[in-house]
């Protein structure tokens, strides 16, 4: 490991991508993630890479589609309204099994909403967003250090499974400056990309990248193949942090920035004699269902805390499967849940 330096979350995303071998970035400006583009615009020429400020999010994601088809490590980034525009090409890329990394530094919606931090794109990221039966790996870092590590991992997972990987952070994570320690060298997964379009060189049959299968039997078969891939990803790539859950009175489910607030709540609650556990999904998809099942009998109740109207709580309920009550506390619009209000909610539940 190298020395610790102070960096902004958004810049760390771009730096991590460069370290992971990403040489192609296509994006469109939108707050609160634009520093990612600024960083690439400045650095890409040094690496002989490509930075294009596209005419739209739609075009940017289709450029990603092209570059991924051509076998490159490629990424785009945006914030919520822009991610909505990318959904067309996201669905196409999922069907064509193209590896790429998409970053969503979430802001509050719906609509143009606001520019402050939110987690209200959980459904969009984990349950589709675009049309059709597809999944993408959704990674949710909760610190700048983890942002760096997960961006590198995202490129490796994308290449390993020929899948899309989305990093979801919130505006706070993107904008905050924190110490980060970069490794001297990254482990880069060496994928076989003999499927990519590179030109046949008159040495092989032509490669085709497509997402259209007019014959229903063929399309169903392709869907079954995708589902099998998603099953494998769920088996191998599910990540979760379990903290303080043995003998907990209540277990809180939270991810990203909110999980950090919960760690402070845990300390304060302990002084009152309340043991609060935390299950922090690091992959929102695949969701760490097994960890919730494992601890389902331990606490009196579960509580999902989110910066949304209640989205991840649905997956928590499915995982706990009625064994314990599952409560929800959330803030919206760019408001951040405070330790005080979370603690009050916990006291009320345990009363």
């Amino acid at each position: 490991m190298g020395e610790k330096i102070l960096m902004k979350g958004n810049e760390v995303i771009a730096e991590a991508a460069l370290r992971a071998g990403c040489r192609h970035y296509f994006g469109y400006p939108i707050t609160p993630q634009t520093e990612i583009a600024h960083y690439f615009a400045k650095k890409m020429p040094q690496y002989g890479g490509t930075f294009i400020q596209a005419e739209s999010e739609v075009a940017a994601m289709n450029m990603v589609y092209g570059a991924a088809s051509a076998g490159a490590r490629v990424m785009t980034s945006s914030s919520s309204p822009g991610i909505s525009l990318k959904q067309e090409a996201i669905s196409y890329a999922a069907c064509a099994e193209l590896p790429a990394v998409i970053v969503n530094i979430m802001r509050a919606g719906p609509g143009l909403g606001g520019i402050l931090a939110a987690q209200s794109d959980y459904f969009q990221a984990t349950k589709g967003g675009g049309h059709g039966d597809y999944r993408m790996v959704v990674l949710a870092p909760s610190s700048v250090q983890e942002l760096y590590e997960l961006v590198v991992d995202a490129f490796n997972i994308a290449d390993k499974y020929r899948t899309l990987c989305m990093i979801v952070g919130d505006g706070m994570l993107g904008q905050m400056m924190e110490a980060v320690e970069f490794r001297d060298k990254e482990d880069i997964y060496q994928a076989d990309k003999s499927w990519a379009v590179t030109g046949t060189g008159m040495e092989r049959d032509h490669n085709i990248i497509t997402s259209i299968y007019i014959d229903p039997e063929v399309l169903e078969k392709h869907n079954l193949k995708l589902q099998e891939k998603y099953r494998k990803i769920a088996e191998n790539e599910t990540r979760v942090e379990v903290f303080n859950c043995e003998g907990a009175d209540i277990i809180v489910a939270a991810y990203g920035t909110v999980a950090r607030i919960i760690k402070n709540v845990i300390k304060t609650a302990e002084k009152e004699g309340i043991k609060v556990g935390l299950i922090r999904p690091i992959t929102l998809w695949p969701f760490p269902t097994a960890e919730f099942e494992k601890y389902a009998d331990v606490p009196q109740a579960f509580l999902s805390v989110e910066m949304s109207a209640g989205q991840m709580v649905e997956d928590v309920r499915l995982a706990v499967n009625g064994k314990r009550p599952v409560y929800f506390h959330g803030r919206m619009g760019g408001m951040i849940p405070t330790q005080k209000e979370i603690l009050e909610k916990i006291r009320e539940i345990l009363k």
Partner: protein
Amino acid sequence: MAIVFQRPHALRETQMHYCPGCTHGIVHRLIAEVIDELGVEGRTIGVSPVGCAYNNYLYFNCDMVQAAHGRAPAVATGIKRVHPDNVVFTYQGDGDLAAIGTAEIIHAANRGEKITTIFINNAIYGMTSGQMAPTTLVGQVTTTSPFGRKPELHGYPLNVCEMLSTLKGAVYVERVSMHDIKNIKNAKNAIKKAFKVQMAGLGFSIVEVLSSCPTNWGIDPVNALKWIEEKMIPQYPLGNFKGKDLEV
């Protein structure tokens, strides 16, 4: 015995799905002949559209990528930036390029992307069964302009070459037609020049090809060719709009 005519190597030996009298197949052949003559099949990557030619990736021997509706120029941009030494072309119809993909084509051209676009203008949406296109002629009856295209309701036909030729990044812009042998020969020359302009790294090149759609126009193939000559060409004059004197 000398072979005087055969399938170009860049075309695959397979049956095409196009309707009788449709000129898509001829344009495919011209592109393939150009690829053969330039000797670039091994380093060419094509981008298929959405529309009647959606699966022309099955017909070309080079590597192919199928793009979402209208997005071929963005997809081609991604490919070309990864493989700058490859020859990258898009094949797009008038709904694809001139309606849903207007932003993508204008900005790819304006960036001077070193790609070549073959733009099929047959004044109608073919695959979805004959709806009005941006290029539909005034008065032309389609399934979504059953009383004829009326400018006060639908606006006017969109002249893509005229529009793109105002952009600095678009260095070679030409409109050709499929209605007779002489014009088909001109079309091939234009396609060849467009590819050469790309290979010389000069910028964006586009060839608009006036094509027939007997099925959706509701006329027989012979009269469809006449319709191109008599009705389409007055609205879409043939010729070079830019890059005529480029030496490549």
